[in-house]
């Protein structure tokens, strides 16, 4: 299994003000094309039930995940237990990035900083 990080953009339903200024597809395609990631995908809202189901269905112990979304403190609070339930470890496996209130270029730079 590849040890490249997986990038998940949590886009807060697309209706929250924090991401209104971001060109989501520019960010995702630049991450996929320009950074050494296993994949880059979008989830509309990891913090509610179908977000839990995403982790339960997809998380594999040992893989690294970069989650672009809201406040990292909140991300930890919302994902930690679900990830532990499926044998993962949030602190070892997830890097949470706050990508709110910024254009795609700035968000891409933050993701690149973590990967490169």
């Amino acid at each position, binding site marked *: 299994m590849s040890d490249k990080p997986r990038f998940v953009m949590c886009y807060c*339903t697309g209706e929250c003000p924090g991401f209104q200024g971001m060109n989501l597809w520019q960010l995702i395609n630049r991450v996929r094309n320009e950074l050494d990631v296993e994949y880059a995908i979008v989830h509309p809202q990891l*913090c*509610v*039930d179908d977000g839990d189901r995403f982790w339960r269905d997809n998380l594999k112990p040992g893989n690294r995940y970069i989650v672009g979304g809201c406040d990292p403190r*909140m991300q930890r609070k919302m994902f930690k237990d679900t990830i532990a339930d499926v044998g993962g470890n949030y602190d070892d496996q997830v890097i949470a990035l706050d990508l709110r209130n910024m254009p795609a270029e700035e968000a891409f730079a933050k993701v690149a900083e973590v990967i490169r």
Partner: protein
Amino acid sequence: MSYYGLPREVIPWFPTVDVDVCAGCQECFDFCGNGVYDWDDNDGHPVVVNPYNCVIGCSACAKICATEAISFPTLKEIAVLIQQLQKQQLENAA
């Protein structure tokens, strides 16, 4: 605001706060980016001031509430209601 053609106000999706259980930590107030809450400094708990700013399907504030003081309808209830409203809307348009 509307929800895919339905007036937002006909869909009762918004948080309800049990102030007796609320610990006053302000996480919900700080977290919500849509201005659903205001903070009552006197009583030290959130007040839902813009319920229809709440994004349908979003219950993140309830998830981060340490004392489970925030509740929402179930998505199932809302889905059934939305179907009824859409059906009614079609009948009215016919």
